C-alpha cells in the first residue's frame, strides 16, 4: 500500500482564507445544484453524528441542522457520541449502519477509508463549493491515490507554543519576542527557577507528544524530511532523526512530573492555573480560558514554535484540517451529501458561528475582521508557515502512528537514554508493515 501517496505536498499555505480574508457578501447562497437536491430532499430523514463537544457541540449542531431543515424540508436526527469510542470503532461503525454525515478529519483518516469504499465520494459537492475554498484546502481533502475527495474541508487550527504574557513579563522577558531556541530555553529555565513547570506536556493518550515531535523535526530537518520519514523514505535510525530526539531530550528536564498522567486538558489546566511556562498545543482550548475569565483569555498568547535551524526558519506548522464526511453505507447518502455541503457552505458556517463555534474556517467567505487579538494572532501564526502538516496521526498510516509511534515516544520520555534502541525498533516495525 503506497501510503506515501496519501500525503499531499502542501507547499502553498491556506493563505487566502487565513489572513483577514475579504468577506464575500454575507447572504451568498448555495449553488444551483443544491437547489435541485433540496426539492428532492423534502420529507426525508438525514442522520447526523456530533463527535464530542459537549453542550456547545450539540448547540452548534442544532443551529446548523435546523437551518438545513428550514431550507430543504428534510428532517435531521442528530446524536452525540464519545469521540474516542467513535474513532476507535470507526471501521466497524462505517461498515455497519452509520449516520449519514459527521465531522471528520482530513489526511489518512479520510483518504484511507474513502479508498476502501466506506466514505462517499464528494467530488460534486466540492465542485459546488469551489468558489469559496482555497485550492490548498481542496487538495488537502483529496486522496492522492483515487484523486477523489472524501471530506469537505471546514476548519483548521494551529499547533503553536502557548504561554501567558503576564508570566513571561514576570521573568523579565518580552512576550512578543520568543523567536529562537535560545529564547525558548531561557523562558523555560527562568520559569523553572521560580518553582514552576518549564514546559508542560501530557502524554497519557500517546498522541499529544507527537505535536512536540512533529514541530521539532520540521524545525531541525525541514518539512520534506519529516514527511519522508513518516512514509518510510527516510529512516528513524538516521542521524537526522536522532538529532530531533536530542533536542526533545533537552525539554524533558523542564517537564512536569505527571506527564504520563494527564492529557491535553491537564496541560490546559496547568496553564490556566499559572503553573507552567509554555506548552505546545492546538489552539482549540482557548475557549476554556475565555469561559474562566476575560482576563485569563487576554493573558493567553501563541507564537510559532521558535526557530532552530535558520535554513528552515519557522516555515512549517501542524495545522490539522477538519471537515465533514459522508458515510457510504448510510441509509440516505444523497441526503447526507446535501447536509454535508450545507455545513461546509457559507450559510451553514454562519449558523455555526452564531451558535458559538470559535474555530477558524478555511472558507473564503469567513469573516475574520471582527477577530480579537488572540484569534488574529492565531491567523498570523498560520500565515507565517509555508508548509502545512496535518499532525503525525493524520499524516502517517493508522497502523503505524497510534500503535507504534505513540508508545515509542512515551517510552522515550520515560527513558531518554534508550533512544537508540527505541529508534531501531521503530524502524524494524515500519519495515515489517505490509506494503503493497
Amino acid at each position, binding site marked *: 500500500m503506497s501510503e506515501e501517496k496519501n500525503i499531499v505536498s502542501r507547499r502553498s499555505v491556506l493563505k487566502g482564507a487565513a489572513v483577514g480574508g475579504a468577506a464575500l457578501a454575507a447572504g451568498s447562497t448555495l449553488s444551483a445544484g443544491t437547489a435541485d437536491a433540496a426539492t428532492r430532499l423534502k420529507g426525508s430523514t438525514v442522520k447526523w453524528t456530533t463527535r464530542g463537544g459537549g453542550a456547545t457541540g450539540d448547540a452548534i449542531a442544532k443551529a446548523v441542522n435546523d437551518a438545513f431543515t428550514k431550507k430543504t424540508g428534510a428532517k435531521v436526527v442528530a446524536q452525540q457520541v464519545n469521540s*474516542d469510542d467513535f474513532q476507535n470503532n470507526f471501521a466497524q461503525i462505517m461498515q455497519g449502519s452509520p449516520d449519514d454525515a459527521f465531522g471528520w478529519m482530513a489526511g489518512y*483518516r479520510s483518504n484511507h*477509508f474513502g479508498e476502501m469504499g*466506506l466514505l462517499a465520494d464528494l467530488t460534486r459537492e466540492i465542485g459546488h463549493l469551489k468558489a469559496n475554498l482555497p485550492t490548498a484546502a481542496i487538495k488537502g481533502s483529496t486522496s492522492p491515490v483515487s484523486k477523489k475527495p472524501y471530506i469537505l474541508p471546514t476548519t483548521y487550527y494551529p499547533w503553536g507554543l502557548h504561554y501567558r504574557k503576564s508570566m513571561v513579563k514576570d521573568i523579565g522577558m518580552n512576550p512578543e519576542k520568543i523567536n529562537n531556541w535560545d529564547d525558548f530555553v531561557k523562558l523555560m529555565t527562568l520559569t523553572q527557577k521560580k518553582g514552576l513547570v518549564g514546559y508542560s506536556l501530557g502524554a497519557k493518550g500517546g498522541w499529544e507528544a507527537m505535536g512536540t515531535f512533529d514541530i521539532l523535526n520540521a524545525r531541525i530537518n525541514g518539512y520534506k524530511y519529516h514527511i519522508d520519514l513518516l512514509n518510510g523514505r527516510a529512516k528513524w535510525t538516521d542521524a537526522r532523526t536522532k538529532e530531533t530526539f536530542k533536542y526533545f531530550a533537552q525539554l524533558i528536564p523542564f517537564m512536569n*512530573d505527571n506527564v*504520563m498522567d494527564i492529557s491535553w486538558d491537564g496541560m490546559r489546566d496547568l496553564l490556566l492555573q499559572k503553573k507552567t511556562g509554555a506548552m505546545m498545543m492546538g489552539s482549540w482550548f482557548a475557549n476554556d480560558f475565555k469561559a474562566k475569565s476575560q482576563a485569563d483569555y487576554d493573558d493567553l498568547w501563541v507564537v510559532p514554535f521558535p526557530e532552530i535551524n535558520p535554513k528552515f526558519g519557522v516555515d512549517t506548522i501542524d495545522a490539522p484540517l477538519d471537515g465533514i464526511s459522508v458515510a457510504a453505507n448510510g441509509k440516505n447518502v444523497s441526503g447526507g451529501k446535501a447536509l454535508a455541503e450545507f455545513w461546509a457552505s457559507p450559510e451553514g458556517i454562519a449558523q455555526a458561528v452564531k451558535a458559538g463555534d470559535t474555530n477558524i474556517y478555511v472558507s473564503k467567505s469567513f469573516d475574520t475582521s471582527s477577530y480579537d487579538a488572540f484569534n488574529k494572532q492565531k491567523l498570523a501564526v498560520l500565515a507565517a508557515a509555508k508548509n502545512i502538516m496535518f499532525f503525525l496521526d493524520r499524516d502517517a498510516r493508522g497502523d503505524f502512528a497510534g500503535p507504534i509511534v505513540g508508545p515509542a515516544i512515551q517510552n522515550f520520555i520515560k527513558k531518554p537514554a534508550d533512544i537508540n534502541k527505541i529508534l531501531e*525498533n521503530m524502524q*524494524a516495525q515500519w519495515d*515489517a508493515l505490509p506494503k503493497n
Partner: protein
Amino acid sequence: MKLAATVQKKRSRRSLSKTDRFTLATFVGIPTLLQIILLWVPAVVTIILSFTYWNGIRLKDIQWAGIQNYKNIFVNNPLFYQALKNNAIWLAFFVVIATPLGILLAYQIDRGIKGHAFFESIYYLPVVLSLAVIGIIWNFMLQPGGFVQGLMGRDIGNAISIWGNPKINTWVILGIASWRHIGYIMLLYLSGLKSVDPALKEAAAIDGATDWEIFRKIILPTMQPVNIIIVVITLIESLRAFDLVYIIYGSPTIFPLLNLLVFQNFAGQGISMKGAAYAVILLLLCIVPIITYLRISFQEDIK
C-alpha cells in the same frame, strides 16, 4: 395413553419415539448451534486471520502472511513483552496475595465472628458493581483533583502521578482489581466451607489444635476440589483482565496487557491482523487453565 406397564417399560428403556428423538435433538441442537456460531466459529476465524495481512474492510485485500504477524510481535514489539510482564505480575499478585486473602477472609467469616453476615455483604459489594461504575468510583479517588490527592494536599497542578507512574500504577491497578477479586473468592470459598463437617473442626479443637492447624490440616485437604477451582478461576480472571484497564486507560501504551493489545490492533484506526495474533497467543495461555478446570470438574464423568 396407557399401555401395559411392562411393554411401556421395555419401550422406555430401549427406544424413544420419533417425536421424542426430534425433541431431544432440538433441545440440544439449538443451543449448541448458537454456541458454535457465536463462540467457536469466530474463535476459529480469528485464529485463521492471525496468519494473514488484512485491513479489516475489503475481503479482497486479504493476503497470506504465514507466521509474519507472530514474528513481528515476538521480535519487534517491546510492548508485547511489557504486556506479558504485566499479565504475569497480575497473575502472581492474584495467586500469592489476593486469592489467599479471600480464602482467609472466608475462613474467618465462616467461624462466625461477630458481624460476619455484615462483613460478607460489604466485602462482596464490589463484585456486583459494573466495571464501568468501578472505573468512575476509583477515578474519583485517584485522579488529579480527587480524594487521595486531596489528602496529600495536592491539587490538579502538582498532583502525584498515579496512573502514569510505572512504579505506582501497577500496584494501584492490582489493588483495584483485587478489591473485586477478593470478595469474589471469599464468597466462593465460603460456600465450599459450608460443606465441611463441623464435627471434624470441633474434634480438632478439643485436641488442642490451633486455628492455623485446623485450617491447614483439616479444612484445606477437605476442600481440595474447591481449591483447584479457585486457583483456576484466579488464573483465568487474571489473563482475561481487560475491562478495568480499558476503562482507565483506553489504550495499551501505558499499562499494556494482552487484551488491550488485541483491541488496539484489531479495532481502532489502524487495523492489522497482529491483533488476531495477540488474541491467539492469549488463547494459548488460557488453554492450560481451561483444560485443568474441565478435568477437575468432570473427573467423575471422564472415568
